[in-house]
């Protein structure tokens, strides 16, 4: 079954773009992606642009309301995700722990809903 791993971290935490440490982080991400791909677990995965580029959309009485920014101002923000095919929660947890941002941020692991047809 599929689990989404939502990658959260505080915007100032972790290596800054342009630094050698940031290059190392990207490299670690490549390694991780390769690992889950080779295990046949990688369904999807993407990094997201920072929350400063976010737009929040809602509707009220048919009227579309648009706000600049994420839906909530939180200390830790969503930076990316992986969608993984795993045998069990244990396997999902084991791999979520290897996502490089786990070192300075947090990964939320949630099962994807399956609808019986």
């Amino acid at each position, binding site marked *: 079954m599929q689990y989404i791993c939502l990658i959260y971290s505080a915007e100032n935490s972790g290596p800054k773009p342009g630094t050698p440490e940031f290059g190392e982080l990207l490299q670690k991400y490549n390694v991780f992606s390769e690992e889950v791909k080779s295990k046949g677990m990688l369904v999807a995965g993407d990094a997201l642009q920072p929350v400063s580029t976010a737009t929040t959309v809602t509707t009220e009485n048919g009227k579309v309301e648009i706000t600049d920014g994420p839906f909530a101002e939180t200390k830790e923000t969503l930076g990316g995700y992986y969608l993984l095919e795993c045998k069990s*929660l*244990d396997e999902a947890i084991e791999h979520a722990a290897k996502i490089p941002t786990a070192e300075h941020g947090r990964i939320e692991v949630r099962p994807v809903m399956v609808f019986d047809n």
Partner: protein
Amino acid sequence: MLPPFQLEQTISTLVREDWGRILASLVSSFNDWQLAEDVLQDSIEQAVVIWQRDGLPDSPAAWLITTARRKAIDHFRRTARFVELQPELAYLIGLEQSSEDFDIDNVIPDKRLELIFTCCHPSLDRKTQVALTLRTLGGLRTEEIASAYLDKPQTMAQRLARAKNKIAVANIPFEIPEESKLRERLSAVLCVIYLIFNEGYAASTGKHITRADLSDEAIRLARIVAQLLPEQTEVAGLLSLMLLHDSRRFTRQDSNNTMISLEDQNRSAWDKGKISEGVELLKATLVKQQIGAYQLQAAISALHAESASWQETDWPQINALYELLYATQPSAVVRINQAVAVSYADSIEAALTMLLEIENDKLVKEYQPFYAARADLNLRDGRKAAAKKDFKKAIALSDNDSQTAFLVDRLNNF
């Protein structure tokens, strides 16, 4: 025919004894916790009626599981999932047909380890782990568990329902963890069992369940795990520790519900059977040379248990054991307990120095036992003003009537 009350007693005892094993086997068969619980509960209710009429079956446990399995099969036939569940159904029906077998291991395969490891899965919070363990392995009713936590039954029911749902939806696997993860996962199981043992319900007795019942349940659970994982020395270590603690059950409080310290307890009222069992088990475990924190704590407890009086206690040995314990589990709590041993093995001065070293620890600043221990040391050393100050602080931090009464008593009596 058994009179109704006796029958109910029999069923009640049987249920407490066998609930965990039967439920574990049902969950293992068709991986649906709620259904397993429901069919087992229904079977018990049916048993009350049928055994009343027909008398007790030769093997009540086998009767219960067979009935439960039949109900599960009926349930699956009725639901839309019948087709995809063919293999599970076939397995269940197969089990049912071999129900002539009275070898308990075949009739009710023991899946209690899988069950307890799943209850104590790290993705469930500690309180949920405890509640789920009590419900599924202990067979305690939701109201009893709620009462133990001073929760409303409704709240506890929701917690349990949420946990079972998470296990199903997030697919927490029903299995014994593999070798590399076993130690870590087992340590959570032991922590949960010890928490159950220590749940001294502040009000001391809930309406439905007493502290004593929970301590008994913890010991029972530890026995099961020890029997199923005989090479894991810390399980035996915990069992030994709990037996030794429990041997003092009736000497801890006086008739006014005031706590009695270890120093003043009536040792002749300590349960010799439990002490003997705890000590023998510990001896058999220590020789396996895989020492851990529970074994060390048990060893300390055993030294107290075997000492005829507080004065005759082997304090240097206890101090040495605390030192080993600290190496495994460096915590202020260990130092506080060790300080008492140091005060007798060495000097009060040395003990006070040990406490001074941890005085500014974040965890210690509002930790009642620290002040209680230091108050006692100061008092013995003749430092009355310092003792008074510490007793007052300890009293202010105490959240337990029995303990508060004890401290107030000491404060008023010097």
